[in-house]
């Protein structure tokens, strides 16, 4: 059996019509719409496990026909969770369209500062708000306590720090993008403002505290691993390749770099490949049961070429992190328990906190850089028709690819978001956990939450649904062997909060 497809047999059952179906629909504490279906036989043995993605397919159409200079602002409306990542990936693609192949130091550093603010706030939200309840109270613990309010009651400092870390990241975004949301800071060819001394001083005031809290969060994840070592190492564990951008000297660089892919043993598959021709390295497979495609490394093919992206992939495959505290934590992580957490699904949490610390340190370094007060903001050159922008977003590699016509209108767009890269890896994690914890057992909410814990580790951002009152993107159905609905519960933003919403 191939080590990269050890649960391939659970992708499609031989006689699904004879099996009982359980749907976790959609997954809670992830963005948008996700659904896991389990097919069980009469003895409750798992026969099929699929993570389905209800991916919104209107993004490219939304963009087509628009003048290119509107795109960095427009694409922020695709996602309320990581708008800055879309803002910057689009800007990088459009830099190429306007012939700006080398930005000014002020523009490059201001965009980086914005990006690290986004990484900080996104990672803080995910760990403190969405994942720490599972990690601090246990995956199968009392559901009533397993939430941020429970964390606030039992660990008030942790909850408060989580809120303030996220807020700080958003302040960095506000000062660099110009607004709290729908920022306009990054434009094709550069930026439209620098960072004033007053803005710099306001951010500098708290940055050392932020670094301290981020470091504390890394140590908290390490402590959780130490306390639950066997379970954490084994939970949803599977070998996979890794994929990310990398700086020319092998350092982690979340804003720019060449493509690096390593195999499951850490051997290089390719390195420092120019991302402008990303389609020569990766391709996408379509499966009939999921709207989301399955990317793979072309050199290995669809069966063996799928990979992980995001914090775990980036921390594992970089040669070093270019800020001292985060690099020390990376070394500890890689050495801990002979490197076992580096291959575990829950290692994502530890790696994510190392990246959050790196983001905090990088923000501090940038705030001390006088280039941020420079006035040379934009460059232009010879226009071209095609532009590709790639960035390491909080959840992984994000690709924006545009074709622009002679009227400056976007005629074709292709977006590959981070969660799509992790599609097969998430399916593999879910199958692993289903076999570990659910096979042959009567299902309970606590057991089903183990599936959600596996998905949450990747911090998927599945689609960008509206969150209007009464619009209920989160729904759980329990369906018996005859296809009859036994129970259902919805999660979302109710007009009248009750225990059913």
């Amino acid at each position, binding site marked *: 059996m191939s080590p990269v497809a050890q649960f391939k047999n659970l992708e499609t059952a031989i006689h699904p019509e004879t099996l009982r179906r359980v749907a976790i629909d959609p997954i809670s504490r992830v963005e948008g719409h996700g659904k896991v279906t389990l097919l069980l036989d009469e003895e409750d043995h798992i026969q099929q496990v699929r993570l389905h993605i209800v991916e919104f397919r*209107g993004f490219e159409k939304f963009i087509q026909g628009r003048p290119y200079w509107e795109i960095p602002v427009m694409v922020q409306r695709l996602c309320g969770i990581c708008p800055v990542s879309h803002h910057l990936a689009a800007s990088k693609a459009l830099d190429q369209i306007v012939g700006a192949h080398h930005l000014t130091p002020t523009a490059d550093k201001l965009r980086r500062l914005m990006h690290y603010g986004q990484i900080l706030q996104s990672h803080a939200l995910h760990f403190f708000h969405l994942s720490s309840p599972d990690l601090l109270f246990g995956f199968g613990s009392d559901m009533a306590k397993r939430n941020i309010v429970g964390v606030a009651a039992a660990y008030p400092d942790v*909850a408060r720090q989580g809120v303030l870390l996220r807020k700080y990241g958003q302040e960095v975004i506000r000062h660099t993008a110009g607004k709290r949301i729908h920022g306009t800071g990054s434009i094709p060819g550069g930026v439209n403002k620098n960072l004033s001394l007053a803005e710099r001083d306001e951010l500098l005031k708290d940055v050392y505290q932020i670094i301290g809290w981020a470091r504390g969060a890394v140590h908290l994840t390490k402590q959780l691993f130490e306390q639950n070592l066997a379970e954490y190492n084994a939970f949803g564990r599977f070998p996979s390749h890794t994929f990310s951008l990398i700086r020319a000297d092998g350092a982690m660089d979340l804003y720019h770099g060449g493509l690096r892919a390593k195999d499951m043993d850490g051997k290089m598959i390719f390195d420092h490949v120019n991302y402008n021709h990303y389609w020569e390295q990766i391709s996408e497979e379509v499966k009939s049961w999921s709207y989301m495609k399955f990317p793979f490394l072309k050199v290995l093919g669809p069966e063996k070429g799928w990979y992980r992206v995001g914090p775990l992939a980036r921390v594992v495959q970089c040669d070093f992190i270019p800020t001292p505290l985060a690099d020390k934590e990376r070394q500890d992580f890689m050495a801990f328990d002979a490197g076992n957490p580096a291959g575990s699904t829950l290692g994502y949490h530890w790696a994510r906190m190392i990246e959050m610390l790196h983001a905090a340190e990088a923000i501090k370094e940038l705030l001390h850089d006088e280039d941020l007060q420079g006035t040379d903001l934009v460059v232009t050159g010879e226009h071209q028709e095609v532009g590709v922008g790639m960035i390491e977003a909080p959840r992984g590699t994000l690709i924006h690819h545009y074709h622009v016509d002679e009227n400056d209108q976007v005629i074709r767009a292709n977006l590959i978001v981070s969660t799509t890269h992790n599609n097969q890896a998430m399916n593999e994690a879910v199958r692993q956990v289903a076999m570990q914890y659910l096979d042959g057992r009567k299902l309970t909410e606590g057991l089903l939450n183990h599936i959600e814990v596996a998905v949450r580790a990747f911090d998927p951002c599945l689609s960008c649904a*509206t969150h209007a009152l009464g619009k209920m993107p*989160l729904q759980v159905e329990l369906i018996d062997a005859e296809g009859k609905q036994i129970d259902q*519960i919805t999660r*979302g*933003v109710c007009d009248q909060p009750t225990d059913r919403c």
Partner: protein
Amino acid sequence: MNIPAPILIIGIGNPSRGDDALGPMLIEHLEALALPDVELITDFQLQVEFALDLQARQKVIFVDASLNAAPPFTFTPVVAAEDTSYSSHALSPSAVLHAYQKLFGEPPPSSVLAIRGEAFELGEGLSEAAKTHLEAALEWLRKRLAEMTAD
């Protein structure tokens, strides 16, 4: 440190998703009025850090599009309550107040202005019905704010 305005109004929604834009559009109209003692914020959705914005306020109003509100809008008090929206990237107003309660104590008096919306597709503008509802909500809120600030 700046003293926060006594009244905070938070408009929620994505301006590019049809009637989901009702919250942000109402905020845009209010911004043009430059009301004293009122701070205006808009965002795609509520999250836990909004609890920080609620500090030292006398009154908070959440404005959002609603599928269920009686047209053209409803205005109802909201209190801290635990619901399952905590498990999503988008919190309900009640959940934000609940987070505030756990972090800082009793939250300020709060209400939800729920404006009836009909269609929420990406790239669409406001529906005709939503435009009418928005006008009605804006007119009513303007008067209400004048009364509140006069008090």
